[in-house]
């Protein structure tokens, strides 16, 4: 049995071509790994995958597997064709939270590889779509052993099921001049306040935090996160006019006009006759385009903070939704600020846990009940920054208008007084 390799004529085709081949990697494990357990597991896996390629169907089913003390974090996989490929008939994935910012030392990666070789298939992905390290392929028993191993040296499971899922943040302040917040710190404050909700799925559906340090939003937070934190700034962008001149000289005025000036969505930049630029900072929407093009000359301002958007998600059930601005700007500098953002997240998750239907994402709930009801539920005032434009339908009751108008003016007076 052990020496018999399942034939893989279709998969073999994927060993051709210049891009590195995962099939060649599987075969290395099958043929060269010192541990017979790994060799034979991966042989079974190759057999089943070939079967999928030939029949164009998948053959894994879910189940219930977790580690002691937790309710989630594992993606259980049992083979529906385990009789034909018994070596890999249990092949669960273990989702492990990566360090904020996805940093590793080579030593730590080697240590993780050692543990995984001891208990798993030897296949791993950095990272899955949500952001977990995916240790792909072990038995129910191996799941517990592997977790016990790596949990001792600092690694914990991510989310699976209706729970707070593993978060994601960009490289940010660690290596990016456009960073407007301390992405990793924000992410860990949020994530590690909810470890219980990560490990014990009891929410209506999944809930994701993602943190991008600037509006380029490298981790797709607005499109994919229930709670998107995006770094931004509210004072003037910094212009190094000497570098502007260098850029104009190197690229030519026409290039600057075509690629910087005329691409600004709000026409907020002008190129002057002396090859300097003038920025209309009140109308700059912090889109990042000009800073991306002229990254030596233009820099984010000093009064940094974050914008928070709620409710982004992919298709299921009502269609894709972008997050909506719920907090146009907040500072994130001292402990009080961090406490505030964590409290807001708690408020939102609590409200959604109470009001969301089964399998309804936060954004879908907002769509169903309306933004105003959501905001009232979490105690946040309406703000014109939350909209593209005010209502265009006249089908609305406005009998509370005077009171609401007075609220608005009172808020404005307060803001002015505290400024």
């Amino acid at each position: 049995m052990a020496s018999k390799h399942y034939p893989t004529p279709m998969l073999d085709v994927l060993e051709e071509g210049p891009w590195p081949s995962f099939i060649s990697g599987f075969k290395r494990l099958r043929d060269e790994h010192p541990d017979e357990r790994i060799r034979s597991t991966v042989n079974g896996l190759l057999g089943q995958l070939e079967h999928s390629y030939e029949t164009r169907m998948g053959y894994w089913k879910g189940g219930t597997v977790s580690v002691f003390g937790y309710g989630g974090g594992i993606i259980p996989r049992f083979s529906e064709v385990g009789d034909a490929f018994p070596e890999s008939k249990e092949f669960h994935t273990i989702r492990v939270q990566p360090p904020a910012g996805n940093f590793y030392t080579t030593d730590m990666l080697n240590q993780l590889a050692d543990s995984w070789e001891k208990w798993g298939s030897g296949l791993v992905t950095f990272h899955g779509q949500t952001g977990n390290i995916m240790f792909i392929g072990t038995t129910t028993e191996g799941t517990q052993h592997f977790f016990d191993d790596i949990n001792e040296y600092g690694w914990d499971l991510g989310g699976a099921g209706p729970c707070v899922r593993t978060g994601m943040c960009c490289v940010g302040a660690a290596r990016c001049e456009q960073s407007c917040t301390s992405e990793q710190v924000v992410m860990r404050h949020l994530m590690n306040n909810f470890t219980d909700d990560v490990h014990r799925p009891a929410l209506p559906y999944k809930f994701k935090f993602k943190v991008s340090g600037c509006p380029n939003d490298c981790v797709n937070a607005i499109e994919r996160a229930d709670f998107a934190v995006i770094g931004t700034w509210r004072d003037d962008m910094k212009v190094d006019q000497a570098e502007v001149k260098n850029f104009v000289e190197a690229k030519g005025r026409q290039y600057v006009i075509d690629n910087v000036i005329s691409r600004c969505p709000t026409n907020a930049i002008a190129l002057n006759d002396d090859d300097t630029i003038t920025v209309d900072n009140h109308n700059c929407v912090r889109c990042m385009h000009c800073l991306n093009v002229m990254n030596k000359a233009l820099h984010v301002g000093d009064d940094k903070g974050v914008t928070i958007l709620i409710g982004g998600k992919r298709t299921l059930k009502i269609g894709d939704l972008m997050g909506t601005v719920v907090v146009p700007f907040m500072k994130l500098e001292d402990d009080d600020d961090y406490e505030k953002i964590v409290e807001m997240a708690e408020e939102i998750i609590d409200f959604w846990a109470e009001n969301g239907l089964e399998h309804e994402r936060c954004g879908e709930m907002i769509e169903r009940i309306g933004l105003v009801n959501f905001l009232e539920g979490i105690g946040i005032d309406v703000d014109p920054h939350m909209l593209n434009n005010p209502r265009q339908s006249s089908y609305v009751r406005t009998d509370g208008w005077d009171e609401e108008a007075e609220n608005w003016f009172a808020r404005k007076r307060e803001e002015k007084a505290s400024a």
Partner: protein
Amino acid sequence: MAAEMRQPIESGCPDGFQYMHPVMLRNYGQWKYHEHPRPGVLLHVAHSGDKIWTVKAGTTRILDVFALRKLTEIGDKLGDGFVRFTIRSNIEYMVADEAKVEPMIAALEEAGFIVGGTANSVSTLSHTQGWLHCDIPGTDASGVVKAMMDELIDDFRNCDMPNRVHITTSCCQINCGGQGDIAINVQHTKPPKINHDLVGNACERPSVVARCPVAAIRPAMVNGKPSLEVDERKCICCGACYPPCPPMQINDHEFTQLAVWVGGNHSNARGKPTFQKLVAAGVPNNPPRWPEATAIVKRILQCYKESAKDWERINDWIERIGWPRFFEMTNLPFTKYHVDNWRGSRSSLNASTHIRF
């Protein structure tokens, strides 16, 4: 029994600072600008004058421990021992000494990894789990990506597109998979085939009924057993009922196909973030190399490369040239299926005389 079990340490998300390159630690939040000295390499310069080079490489994404150890060995021997992974699963090595860059590139290429993926490249396709590990997959994921990257490798290496291109694939129609400049996603074309003998035991029927976006499912007695029925005229073949009820098999070796979407853009640069739009369906799900899907992707990329202006992402480009021209250039058929009828769809209709001739 339970008493012998080890209690978990609920440590949550680990601190990234402990694994960060000392130069990055020292200059945290103090970066001034970056340059792109060559494809696959970034140079970041801090206000202090400190510099850090990043060498980026594409891998198989699903790494076997041999490949992982090869990657760490290169980082140990030729780098500074500090790495990170991007959201498209490329590995990045950070080094403080420029002299380390070229040897590292040579070693990575020698070991079969592909250096590139920076700036205006077609970066590695992000993908879901597929036949390899998903419980509801309509297609494979890693195989699609390998087959496509074989053909897009020059665009990964050369970084000479008008702007960056993110491609994603998804092995079901509804759930995982991200938004992309180009997305290759499963598209089912027939309603689920129901195994009525199993539904009663395997499925929580009310939640399956609730899962359908078009209310096409109703409880029914079939052959004297409690089951579920689908109104096939209403069914949009999305497969949302399949995960909570595996006997409602949506995947089919023939009728599960692929669709290609374009113009998803996560960035706020220039316009607001955009969702991807359908451009081609009926694409055969054709392992092991999916040549039909790859051909469409290549054609779109070629038109984009030839016709887009600098800094235009695919959505910016199409917004400028208009959809009629896009279909004309790419030679893709325009059909009634491109006209949206889902909620909010009216805003996708042209209520103006803005027409290009």
